[in-house]
């Protein structure tokens, strides 16, 4: 191979790998991402049937029901609308009534959200940002709620 051919072969190979990678990334961005929806958006019918998405809001106080076989039912609310959720499994440590929660799953035909995952939170003051934003939109967010109680300089 001449010098020029070598250079072309090299550039061609690099271009090929980059093209494959770009293709993979674009395909994955089409199919593998999940939208975050609030109960209001669900009520407005923004969710396509069968679409997997993240549902976030507050766990409605008094709504948690535990059934045999580790099935849990609860209601997620953003103040304006609610969605019933069912989940099989052990709930994360910081799952509590009246607290923020993010779940992942699909809406079933009856309008019940079947959550495959209930996301764990790591801090008792921590409010998932998506939940905080959607609560703000509904006017149910009091600034400073999730803030540190300590004095700020």
């Amino acid at each position, binding site marked *: 191979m001449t010098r020029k051919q070598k250079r072309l072969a090299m550039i061609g190979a690099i271009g090929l790998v980059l093209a494959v*990678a770009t293709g*993979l990334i674009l395909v994955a961005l089409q199919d*593998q991402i999940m*939208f975050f929806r609030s109960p209001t958006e669900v009520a407005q019918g923004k969710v396509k049937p069968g679409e997997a998405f993240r549902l976030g809001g507050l766990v409605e106080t008094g709504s948690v029901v535990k059934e045999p076989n580790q099935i849990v039912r609860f209601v997620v609310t953003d103040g304006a609308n609610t969605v019933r959720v069912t989940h099989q499994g*052990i709930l994360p440590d*910081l799952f509590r009534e009246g607290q923020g929660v993010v779940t992942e799953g699909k809406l079933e035909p009856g309008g019940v959200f079947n959550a495959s995952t209930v996301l764990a939170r*790591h801090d008792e003051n921590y409010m998932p*940002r998506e939940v905080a934003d959607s609560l703000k939109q509904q006017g149910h967010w009091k600034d400073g709620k999730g803030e540190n109680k300590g004095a700020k300089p």
Partner: protein
Amino acid sequence: MIVELGHFALILGFAVALFQATIPLWGAIRGDAVLARLGAQAALVHFALLALAFAALTHAYLVSDFSVLNVFQNSHSLKPLIYKWSGVWGNHEGSMLLWVLILALFGAGVAVFSKRLPDDMLGATLGVQGLIASAFCAFLIFASNPFLRMPNPPIEGRDLNPVLQDPGLAIHPPLLYLGYVGFSIVFSFAAAALVLGRVDAAFARMIRPWTLAAWITLTLGIAMGSYWAYYELGWGGYWFWDPVENASLMPWLTGTALLHSAIVLEKREALKTWTILLAVVTFSLSLLGTFLVRSGVLTSVHAFAVDPERGLFILLILIAFIGGSFALFAARASALQGGGLFAPISREGALVFNNLFLSVASLAVFVGTLYPLLLEALTGAKISVGPPFFNLTAVPLMVPLFLAIPFGQKLAWKRGDLLGAGQRLWTCMALGVAGAAISAYAAGGGPVLALAGIGLGIFLVLGALDDLLDRALRGGIGMIGARLRAIPQSITAMALAHAGAGLMVIGISATAFETEKIAAMKPGETMALDGYTLRLEGIGPVTGPNYNAIAAEFSLRDAAGTELARLRPAKRVYIGRQMPTSEVGRYRHGLSEIYLAIGETSDGQHVDLRAYHKPYVLLIWLGPLLMSIGGILSLFDRRLRIGVPARRARLRPEPAE
């Protein structure tokens, strides 16, 4: 008093950093050896001052001085001593102080070994390091000062986030930071080389130990964090493609690429601009990681504080350094002489292959991590890019790389013989396929991809070790001992590191064969788990130093009925924050584990149990450990330390004061 001393030392350290950022750099550019050499003294003094500041904050934590706001918010007098130590960096301000301390440590390291460096290189490198240190010292002092006092000191602190109260946390952040920030010195070397217009084999030899040191600690830090998540978060997962994990993975991928491209630069004087670019990109990704973690734009276990002002400050530093370095790169890179082309089938060709795939994989992680932020900023739509995205992009991009490693190891410089290299590797490949078949038989089938992964891992391990075997056998049977001793340490290091990658692939693939069982159990009830039997012996309260817990005691028996262990998974509630955490029960056999986590025990009669049998799970972390051991061996290879030519052509050496 001690706290004020620390505060003062930090401010003084800032002043010294400003000096270090200007005078030695100016001296290097002007060719004034005395001024350039001043960088070494400045770096040492800067490090001493930062160490003093860090010691003062540590002292405040150890004596539980709650008049310091930072200590009040993150400590508790009943906290065990080790967590008072680790609490220093278990929060935003303290961790940033550690960040700057490590920055200073690497600058001081270069200063200590400065005799080997040309004067102008030393001055310019430490000057750039001083610029970074100045920016972050300013950030500490003006936007996140750990030394602020409170007017009315409370009696008790608010305690450290309980999930962070674990021995794993005591070492995870310092290791990770050593890696992340360690690349700063490589960046400084690269910027200095651009300013001075000298990129050659000597440059590659200069950055080699620093790149290796940063890479080793980053590898260990990521592995440690993954192991910590596995046993502390109680879901048995080891990697979540969480944006913050990705933030550490990106510099690791490009740093690994840099490690390999620097070898080509050293041996063949090729890939000059590419190596410089990788050094710049790697530290830029480290800065990006710091920004993502510390600005609160992401929601994650690692995000301590959501404070827009701090985010903006770090963003400005990020833009200044990334923008500045790329501008410098664009202006000066064309002045570097290219090293010429080489044959695709050769050691250097294989290393280019490695670089290509590592960079592209890093790009995929980059897109997946930043796309949600970009989309939200542009359209307001909130999306999450989770494991499926990365499994479809980054993972397939790593497979050709892993397949190529054993071949690359066998190829000679300049012109390699792929068929010759392949001959021995056919055996390794056949053994890999056999290993996959045996796994399929033992597990009674299994996902094809996981089996292929196990085969790939076995091929990698055998292919890496075969290189050593091949070298040992070349002199005939009688010579094995002598030949083994004659193998250069860096060759052994490479084989071990690549074998480590193989072990990790096996461990990750084996997770497809784990068994998970969930059940509500009463005392006396049993559960069968892959030939083992678990029996709930009792449920009871446990009191710890700063927490109360409900623990369940399980006995674990094997198929013959012999009791192997008592496991006590628990739910803890920490007194300071009234926050519950899980404590898992684990039993190790060989490289596999039985893993128990319990859920609610509200009525005191039942306990929700989640039990796993995880075959070969420990390989996931033993692999990276072996990789780091390889790195350490390579770092201490005598051949690469002795005989580094001292280049003093341009400047006349002056005795350091």
